[in-house]
């Protein structure tokens, strides 16, 4: 494949005319009037949003988005696919609008290596390029082997379905093929992990499916935690709808899984209790996406320390890490957090390229979970900067009320679907 240097790259994509016309001067790191170039690595909620919002904020900045998949399957609403409520196409997102409407150079390739000092990268397909700033939104990768016996091969029998797509379909098909009276095991990880309420929404929607199709079956959640996100609301809904179907085993009752056997379709607890499952969903411990680990952007936690104002890596300047891979606590690892961070990082990157002061960002997270297609619950949080740390605004946000009437839950379920339509448009269109 042709090697593209930045010089020729800029030439291909339109030169310096636009920057001059807009009166932009003094672009940092770009000598002699070339347009600044931002490379966005990863086209999920964080990366797609960052690419779009950089172009919205400053059309003089060239943006290249590098994402391996031509179709991106979102984790939000993937549990409805597993439960047979929506088809897989419902969660499919494409990149043509980012390319056409925002003039983003979308490359479907995998970033192989990055040189943070030279600000260059090379892809698996052999393309190399340089960047003035990079936004990396690589999502998560799995700590294979952290649970004894759970490796990539085991994940083909015991799907994690914690990256959506083929794994989502695999879990859906296993559930559809299961006999009535079967047991579904769900094994969530310890904190922190992607989408804290996700395993419990999954348990709910699988129970929804089983109640209608295989009512003698059971969902057993084997949890290494003693508490989980939106717990009060989930338990209230389970008591109402799935009392005989869902059982949650916390860490205090030996819920922590030490090992699995894909051949026997069993999992073994820390104290040695063996559970047999007909469908087993192991959601393993996680770390930042592979390219972040390979580039040395992670610390001992497996995630990426950043300046929370700019999301610039504290390890490698010039690379801004957002989304699930970054350490943005108290923000949770969610699609909405990544989308919100994508906008803040867009503002920061545009300012930094111009040598201007970085605007003080504000952030938000809203997250809906479905317990049934007509039963939704939510959590919201507002974040602002406290010095250079992100802090939740006290007295704001929080979860849906417990004890609400049917109409309230139904309305939140409708808003959950509206949320998906909006955030998909806001990120990819």
């Amino acid at each position, binding site marked *: 494949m042709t090697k593209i240097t930045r010089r020729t790259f800029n030439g291909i994509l339109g030169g310096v005319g636009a920057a001059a016309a807009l009166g932009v001067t003094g672009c940092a790191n770009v000598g002699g009037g070339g347009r600044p170039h931002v490379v966005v690595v990863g086209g999920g909620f964080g990366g797609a949003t960052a690419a779009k919002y950089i172009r919205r904020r400053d059309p003089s900045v060239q943006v290249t988005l590098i994402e391996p998949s031509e179709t991106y399957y979102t984790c939000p609403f993937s549990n409805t696919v597993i439960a047979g409520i929506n088809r897989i196409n419902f969660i499919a997102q494409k990149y043509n609008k980012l390319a056409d409407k925002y003039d983003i150079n979308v490359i479907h390739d995998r970033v192989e290596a990055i040189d943070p000092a030279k600000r260059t990268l090379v892809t698996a397909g052999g393309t190399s390029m340089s960047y003035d700033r990079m936004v990396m939104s690589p999502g998560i990768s799995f700590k294979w082997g952290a649970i004894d016996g759970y490796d990539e091969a085991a994940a083909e029998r015991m799907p994690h379905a914690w990256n959506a797509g083929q794994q989502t379909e695999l879990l859906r098909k296993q559930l559809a093929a299961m006999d009535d009276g079967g047991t579904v095991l769900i094994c969530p990880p310890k904190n922190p992990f992607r989408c804290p309420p996700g395993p419990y929404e999954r348990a709910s929607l699988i129970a929804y499916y089983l109640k209608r199709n295989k009512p003698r079956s059971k969902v057993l959640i084997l949890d290494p935690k003693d508490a989980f996100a939106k717990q009060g609301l989930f338990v209230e809904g389970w008591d109402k709808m799935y009392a005989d179907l869902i059982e949650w085993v916390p860490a205090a009752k030996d819920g922590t899984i030490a090992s699995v056997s894909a051949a026997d379709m069993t999992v073994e607890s820390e104290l040695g209790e063996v559970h047999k499952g007909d469908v087993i969903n192991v959601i393993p411990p996680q770390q930042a996406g592979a390219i972040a680990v390979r580039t040395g952007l992670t610390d001992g936690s497996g995630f990426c320390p950043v300046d929370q104002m700019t999301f610039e890596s504290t390890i490698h300047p010039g690379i801004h890490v957002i989304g699930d891979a970054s350490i943005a606590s108290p923000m949770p690892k969610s699609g909405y957090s990544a989308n919100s961070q994508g906008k803040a990082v867009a503002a920061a990157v545009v300012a930094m390229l111009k040598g*201007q002061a970085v605007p003080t960002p504000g952030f938000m997270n809203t997250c809906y979970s479905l317990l049934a297609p007509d039963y939704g619950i*939510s959590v919201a949080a507002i974040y602002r900067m406290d010095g250079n740390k992100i802090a939740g605004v006290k007295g704001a946000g929080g979860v849906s009320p417990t004890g609400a009437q049917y109409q309230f839950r139904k*309305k939140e379920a409708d808003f959950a679907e509206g949320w998906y*339509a*909006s955030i998909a448009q806001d990120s990819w269109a």
Partner: protein
Amino acid sequence: MKGRTRSLGLLAAIAFTVAPAAVHAADDISVIVDACAGCHGTDARSPGEMPGFSDKTAEKIAKVMLEYKSGEKEATIMDRVVKGYSEAQLQAIAEEFAARNSR
């Protein structure tokens, strides 16, 4: 500070005509407004069940948010969201939405 936040909203609304340095100095209302788009769609052009308000004036948008804040208007989630902002910030947010929509 309250008055300042409000004037920043106005400044952000005309960002493309003024020296950028003036807007990018402090709390940026435009980033806060961008954050709303995750639920309401880019520039409040909601494609689905969420309320969109891309055709509404700043007065109307501010009125609804302030009613959520006072509890006068019932909500499923916006009552929890508006608590994160001062009245002056809500006013500035409304002005920024309306300014974008009139472009």
